[in-house]
């Protein structure tokens, strides 16, 4: 039986991993990350539709990096982050053991019941519900049909506004920002040792939460993730003031796909979008 319990037990007893990063249930509709380093805690591990966190964010943490071989529970979307981290030289493939499953989506947020209505938006358009890169698969249900995604229609809606209207829309949204940087902390690809916003000589991005500074911060955050964001939506989920960050990320994902036929984190070793170029890159907008 390839259930999670057996797999994890086996991994520890055969010394294949030193640590498993996984989920532990808090109640029937909530989980939290758990770090299991021995056989004893294996029975806490769960992997279900309430396993929301993208655990790959921990892989670049210093105290996790010291483990030689790390097992990690990862959904298809989370695996894209792991692949991108490998492609950006942050982790080594050999050190990571990916335990995955076929995924039928997760809930939007903790506390909600898993049903059609509450399925997270990102899951509806997910192309890797059956992951392509993994080491072990646990027994899981076959893919079900999920509701139609709405994100691109929301992007289109914004695209059809006038620039002034869009500016007003984002000014309103960003003005809510309290600069808690939860979006940054939850993002597996925001692994910089010192974020650009924390650099104060020069002070590219003012650190106080003024409207202008918030606007600049959110633009640069989105730009730094252009062609890198894998769309796990963790930034938006953790945002305490509900800024629709996924809209920005989705837009840039669409741009990357339309302009460069590029989707992030699909294949280990594939060239990154930024950092490479083609002679044929579009330059219609350049005089």
């Amino acid at each position, binding site marked *: 039986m390839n259930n999670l319990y057996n797999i994890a037990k086996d991994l520890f007893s055969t010394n294949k991993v030193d640590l498993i990063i996984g989920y532990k249930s808090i109640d029937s509709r909530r989980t939290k990350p758990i770090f299991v380093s021995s056989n004893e805690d294996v029975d806490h591990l769960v992997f279900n539709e309430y396993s929301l966190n993208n655990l790959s964010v921990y892989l670049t943490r210093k105290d996790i990096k010291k483990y030689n071989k790390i097992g990690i529970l990862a959904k298809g979307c989370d695996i894209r982050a792991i692949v991108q981290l490998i492609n*950006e*030289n*942050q982790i080594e493939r050999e050190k990571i053991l990916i335990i995955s499953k076929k995924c039928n989506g997760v809930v939007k947020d903790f506390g909600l019941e898993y049903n059609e209505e509450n399925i997270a938006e990102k899951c509806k358009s997910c192309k890797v519900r059956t992951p392509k890169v993994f080491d072990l698969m646990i027994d899981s249900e076959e893919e079900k049909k999920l509701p139609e995604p709405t994100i691109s229609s929301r992007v289109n809606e914004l695209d059809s506004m006038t620039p002034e209207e869009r500016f007003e829309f984002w000014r309103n949204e960003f003005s809510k920002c309290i600069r808690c940087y939860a979006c940054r902390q939850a993002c597996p690809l925001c*692994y*910089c*040792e*010192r*974020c*650009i916003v924390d*650099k104060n*000589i*020069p*002070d*590219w991005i003012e650190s106080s939460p003024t409207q202008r500074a918030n606007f600049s911060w959110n633009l640069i955050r989105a730009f*730094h993730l252009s062609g890198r964001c894998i769309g796990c939506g963790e930034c938006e989920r953790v945002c305490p003031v509900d800024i629709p960050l996924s809209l920005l990320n989705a837009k840039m994902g669409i741009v990357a796909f339309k302009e460069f036929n590029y989707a992030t984190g699909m294949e280990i070793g594939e060239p*990154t979008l*930024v*950092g*490479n170029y083609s002679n044929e890159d579009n330059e219609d907008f350049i005089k």
Partner: protein
Amino acid sequence: MKIGVFVCHCGENIGKTVDCPRAAQESAKIPGVVISVDNKYTCSDPGQNMIKNAIKEYNLDGVVVASCSPHMHEKTFRKAVASVGMNPYMCEIANIREQCSWVHDDVEEATKKAIDLIRIAVEKVKRNFALTPIKVPVTKRALVIGGGISGIQSALDIANAGYEVVLVEKEPSIGGHMSQLSETFPTLDCSQCILTPRMVEVYQHPKIKLLTYSEVEKVEGFIGNFKVTIKKKPRYVDETKCTGCGLCTQKCPIKKAPNEFEQGMIKRTAIYVPFPQAVPNIPVIDNTVCTYFRTGKCQMCVKVCGKEAIDFNQKERFVVEEVGAIIVATGYSLYKIDKKPKDSPIKGYGEYGYGIYPDVIDGLQFERLASASGPTAGEIKRPSDKKEPKKVVFIQCVGSRDESKGFSYCSKICCMYTAKHAMLYKHKVHDGEAYVFYMDIRSGGKMYEEFVRRAIEEDDVKYIRGRVSRIYEDGGKYIVKGEDTIAGIPVEIDADMVVLATAIVAQNDSKKLAQTIGIPYDKYGFLNEVHPKLRPVESSTAGVYLAGACQAPRDIPESVAMASAAASKALVLFGSDMLEREPTIAKVNESTCAGCFYCQKVCAYNAIEKKEIKDRNGNFVKYVAYVNPGLCQGCGTCNATCPSKSVELIGYTDEQIFAEINALATL
């Protein structure tokens, strides 16, 4: 910081449109500016003295000269401030002439703009710091890749200047294509006669280390400090023991291998010297045909060699050479079609029967036929029946200047060598007829046009302007169907032999070599120079130079000129012990670098390396980027790409540019 501002009128040039006194007064109000004056001609001696005196009098930390473009006089003013002890990089130029007074008419607006430009420069100079040129030690040894005429020339020039040279040649002998030529245009002197002494000179030169039958495997390092790994292919003959007596090559029972040097027109033995004048005169065993290698028996060569020089156990060996400069002189190869056009990588010219009819040959084959040391001892005989051809057709531009079937470029030397071939043929076969089909004749060069005219007028070579559509065999003749576009009629010539001037193409492994060294190449595989006009022999990688036909089709004088130019570039480098480089290069903040290596991906100069950071106890902490100061050219693309700005371009740091933008703030 104490900054001095000097506003130049440039006579009327600036003064007419910019109110210079007012610009100076306004500039004085910028925080940090302690003196701000205007001056008629700042670049003149009195003008420069005014700056020098002010530096001393006000003990200035920085200087802004508002004048013409920095491309004009930045060097002048930097030299001036340096003469009184200020670091030259503490002087900045505000361009108020080319980009202000000359392009605007409105005095008020031009003056305002000039003040803004001065403010930008002041804010920048406040954040400048003293820089000293980077010094890199230079290994005064050169590597020359390729032992054709270009490589030989470069090697001799450098060696004669007193520096050591490592010359690497992939074939068993040096000499290259030039050694295959019969006679050379436009003087018709014998190629071997002028080349062989040079080859011997290379061999005997105490400063030249010759590595034949060897290939460059890996190149590490940077200008002045390259480490090159060279693969020595096994000859199966001990070079230190062999005397070159040639007994082994006479006794070898395998005599059916195609002779590459003779363009496959005759056969050679399994153990062979490529050609009689080969340097070094040491045989090599072709292990694909040698009986011993195929069956484990024979060893005839071992039996006859009195010096016990045969060594079947030789393996590939790798030698590492440290050099300061690399000259690439790998030459060209010829556009060739295999026996079956269907299987050939190059499509086209099946209609000429090239590769199918034995008497439709290419230019190099003709060179061998015409060569006194060739398979026919210099008599023109057709390969099929060894009869003297009485009618020969030469076709130019086969593969060149033909986008649909070959390449769009001109191979450059074919017009000349075709004239030479036709002439040589006429000199040898007096009653023969020679026809040349051409598109137009390109004979730019000293005595070149005269040479072609001589072929036409004195030697009665018949030039026909037009293309050939088809060649077919008919009773031992080759019917050449073409068009005479001047007469406007179709022509048919029943030739005995046809010579195709096939295109010059890049060596088939040139791209691989370019990638090994880290230099760019064009879509045809020719290596790219860094600037087509002003730096024609330098590659974009500092310390790597190009010579000869590896860069584009070249004739012998051009190749030799390039080779000497490349050698002189290397010698300039060897002229000093330390290499001085602009200090405006990128630098990494190792404590904040997260090691994503996006900087490495965007660097065009391979200047960014992986560096291991260890803690005090020697434990590995992380990888960070490291900028090799010998390679960085200071474009700053890494700086803009780095998400956390952990790599910064000195001289254009984020802080400086931030200050420049700030200087324009209206808020």
